[in-house]
């Protein structure tokens, strides 16, 4: 029995109908790998009928760096820095995912201080990621100004990170067994100042973009995806929650300090672009709520429960753990053969699954809607190819 594999070549073959002199022809266009709104090197092969999108075929692999394979040749500690490079906008949360998997496998107990700081950092990172998304989303819809507003506010969080961590983007801060450094003495003050600053700015975001009639027209009802479809393609994070499925690991698994704080899981109703937009804006508010609850009671303690020089060896076996990044569930699967480096690492990245929502939702919408839908999925391409 032979298996027929459908290649890209098969899919881009056209059936031309010459029966009528007025017959029109569908055509294929490459959107990317160099295109302003694919945010990196994502390639989408589009089957277009005039302006209408008939089919979207994502073609991946343009930024594949073999992170999983590299992980097999590095120690567990070293692998953490590679996780920064997955979804670089959730670098700290990725660090946390890898560290937590290793800690659970090696039975490392953490103190409360580490958990609270990790939670704080993760939520700041989530706000920062959503700020950037908001700006880019505006730009994809043709409004350039939100982009710079988003960057302006993002900078403040980047400064907070820089002060404590020393880096602004790929931070490598959360380590197996604790944190790389203790927080900077000015951290609490700075975060409070940021909360003060950002609350009115979020209202400004609403005035500039959310209430705009053009934006509403562009988003409402566009790219609708029901909860069932979203679950079947494995979408997670805001994309899934916008479709009305209240799945949030922060609530359901309550890792870190999430069990101690009160926050709501924001869900949408229709699963259209507007809901995805609204869910993310609302998530920024919820994240601020979490930070507000934690920032005043950071417990005392060490920032590292084990010496950084200690080599970590996991007992033989398979380990899986997952966290909620700004874009959805990041799962880390480690197969250990008892040596210093993992036998195999697999990453279940949120963007890989979220991207396939475009094949479900974009058909029969216009080219302009495709850009809006893609942007509302908030795809970070290096997270897809890893």
């Amino acid at each position, binding site marked *: 029995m032979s298996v027929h594999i459908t290649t890209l070549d098969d899919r881009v073959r056209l059936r031309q109908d010459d029966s009528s002199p007025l017959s029109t022809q569908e055509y294929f266009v490459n959107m990317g790998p160099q295109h*302003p709104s694919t945010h990196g090197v994502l390639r989408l092969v589009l089957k277009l009928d005039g302006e209408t999108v008939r089919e979207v075929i994502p073609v991946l692999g343009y930024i594949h760096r073999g992170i999983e394979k590299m992980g097999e040749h590095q120690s567990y500690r070293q692998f953490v820095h590679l996780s920064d490079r997955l979804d670089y906008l959730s670098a700290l949360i990725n660090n946390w995912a890898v560290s937590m998997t290793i800690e659970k496998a090696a039975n490392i107990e953490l103190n409360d201080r580490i958990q609270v700081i990790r939670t704080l950092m993760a939520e700041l990172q989530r706000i920062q990621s959503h700020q950037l998304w908001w700006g880019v989303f505006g730009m*994809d819809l*043709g*409004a*350039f*100004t939100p982009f*710079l507003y988003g960057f302006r506010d993002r900078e403040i969080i980047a400064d907070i990170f820089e002060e404590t961590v020393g880096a602004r983007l790929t931070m490598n801060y959360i380590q197996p067994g604790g944190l790389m450094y203790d927080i900077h003495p000015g951290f609490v003050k700075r975060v409070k100042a940021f909360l003060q600053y950002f609350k009115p700015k979020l209202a400004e975001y609403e005035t500039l973009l959310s209430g705009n009639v053009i934006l509403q027209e562009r988003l409402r009802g566009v790219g609708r995806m029901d909860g069932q479809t979203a679950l079947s393609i494995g979408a997670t994070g805001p994309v899934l929650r916008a479709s009305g499925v209240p799945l949030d690991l922060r609530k359901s698994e309550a890792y870190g300090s999430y069990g101690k704080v009160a926050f709501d899981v924001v869900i949408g109703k229709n699963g259209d672009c507007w809901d995805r937009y609204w869910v993310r804006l609302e998530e920024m508010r919820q994240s601020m709520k979490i930070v507000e609850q934690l920032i005043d009671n950071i417990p005392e303690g060490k920032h590292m429960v084990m010496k950084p020089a200690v080599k970590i060896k996991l007992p033989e076996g398979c380990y899986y753990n997952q966290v909620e990044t700004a874009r959805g569930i990041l799962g880390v699967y480690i197969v250990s053969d008892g040596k210093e480096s993992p036998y195999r690492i697999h990453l279940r990245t949120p963007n890989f699954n979220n991207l396939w929502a475009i094949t479900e939702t974009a058909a029969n919408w216009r080219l*302009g809607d495709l850009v809006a839908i893609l942007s509302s999925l908030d795809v970070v391409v290096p997270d897809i190819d890893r």
Partner: protein
Amino acid sequence: MTGITENIWQAKTVAQRAAEALPESVWFALGYMVLGVVGVAAFIAVLGMGLIYAERKIAGHFQCRLGPMRVGWHGIFQTVADTLKLLLKEDVVPAQADKFLHILAPLFTLLGTILVLAVLPMSPIVHVSDVNIGVVYVGAVSGFGVLGILLGGWSSNNKWSLLGAMRAGAQIISYEISATLALLVVVLFSGTLRLSEIVESQAAGWWIWRAHGVGIVAFLLFFIASLAEINRTPFDIPEGESELTAGFHTEYSGMRFAFFFLAEFINMFIVAALTATLFLGGWMPFHIGDFAGFNAIMDMIPPGLWFTGKTAFLVFLIMWFRWTFPRLRVDQLMRLEWKVLLPIGFANLIAAAVVVLFNFYFFPVR
């Protein structure tokens, strides 16, 4: 017409002066013609640079940054440097492109712009040619722009360019209808097609507010439709940077790209200037009916300044839109024109006819 305009400003265009000089000396006439041509060309170059600088500065301040700051004081020579760069850049024509049309397209676009500029009454003395069918001429000649865009998109042999060109074609031709309907309202009011006479007919008050709301509706219609005609945000779908990379001029580089770019900016000025001329009195000072004293004070401000001020305000408005609004989708754009603007345009034209029939203006002068 009031006595003020006739006596103080002897309106003479460059073309008229050339015609008067012709019997005496052919060289004088030729000199005036050259003056007109060189004047328009120099004006375009300087204005283009000025507008680009203004746009970048305004965009900068809208976006909490400073804009160009390095070249010269507050970056005033930035556009000069950019122009030099564009002049020196390699002019790439894609291998599969239709070379002749590819080279021709930006010239067409710029040509439409130059020809409109020649009939704009900027002040009683700065006016190249006063065509007796000015309004019709403007409507006809501005069509060159879309021709250039269509040719450019077609000849580039690039699917993105073609999509942009087709969008532009559909958009510009649709919105021209609404713009023309709004123009006709002013033609009805003033009873003339000559742009200078339209300006003079507003001596007692500008058309935007003299006709009980009809003028305001026509003003808004014309302004919105013109924005769509010149592909400015929120109607910039032919370029659609995030959708079509750069739309119809994706395959253009160097000076040919600069032509498209220049035409876009000059078109912005033209729209502002035309709107000011038709609805805000052009170079005509702010007059209120028969209030002679008030009008006399207003007359002290030179007409060139009035024109510049009004145009600059509208240009600022256009830039403000660009740095605030997202972009419409292509079908929404068509819906806005055919289902909203067009019916309003027709209704407004009928209302204007009624206003004219009963001579129902504020400050009726005729």
